[in-house]
């Protein structure tokens, strides 16, 4: 147990992923759901970096995947918040249960 191995880091990222999934399943507020998605994406980033560090130290591919995931997460968060603000303007609420105007 003295040496921090790949298994430890994978365990942390697994826990982080399922905490994010728990938040996504239980929250009803759109901004908190977005936060849960950010946690999930971050756990994936930790996985990529850990595999790159411990298994494929001669390459940088995991690192590039992390960079592109961070970029796309930033774009996704910006678009999601624009949609949330627009929805708030129309419905005066950002609860997912209230956003049912597209139901037939």
């Amino acid at each position, binding site marked *: 147990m003295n040496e921090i191995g790949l298994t430890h880091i994978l365990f942390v990222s697994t826990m*982080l992923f*399922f905490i994010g999934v728990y938040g996504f399943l239980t929250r009803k507020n759109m901004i908190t759901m977005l936060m849960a998605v950010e946690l999930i994406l971050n756990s994936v980033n930790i996985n990529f970096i850990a595999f790159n*560090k411990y298994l494929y130290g001669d390459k940088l591919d995991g690192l590039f995947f992390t960079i592109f995931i961070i970029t796309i997460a930033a774009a996704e968060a910006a678009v999601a918040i624009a949609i949330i603000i627009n929805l708030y303007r129309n419905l005066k609420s950002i609860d997912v249960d209230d956003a049912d105007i597209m139901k037939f």
Partner: protein
Amino acid sequence: MNASTMVFYILSAVILGGALLSVTAKKIFRAAVFLLFSLIGIAGLYFYLNYEFIAAVQIVVYVGGIVVLIIFSIFLTHESGRDMKEPSMISNLFAVFACCFAAALTYLFIKEEHFNATPNPTLEPSARNIGTQMLDITRYGYILPFEAVSILLLAAMIGCIVIAIKLKPKE
């Protein structure tokens, strides 16, 4: 237990504790602040693994960008002192069960797996190596995804403006 191990466990405690409080906090502003702690802990984990560039990107983009954006949108859409709705008992129970069992299953797989590291000499993840390979136009370069993601960012920016723009009602 040496100092390096201690640092790892402290970082893990910050990451997981922040994440757990972030998904269970009653007030939405507190949830955003706990998310901030969790993201800073993840940046610390990247520093711990000697990936300084990714740690810097994590701090700049997540801590400086996304969390600030989230906090702004909380101020625009909420009375941030108010408590949020509690999840119903049954959905909470099922979510906890699903996540615990899935985490346990994944943990079993991780524990059983034997990973084999590559014997090749390691490549330093310095900014020079990252930049050289990212803008490389030969076989192992990442110039095409780089360009694609730049177009994606432009499209996202225009899309955000179009979605959130407030049109004046016609006279």
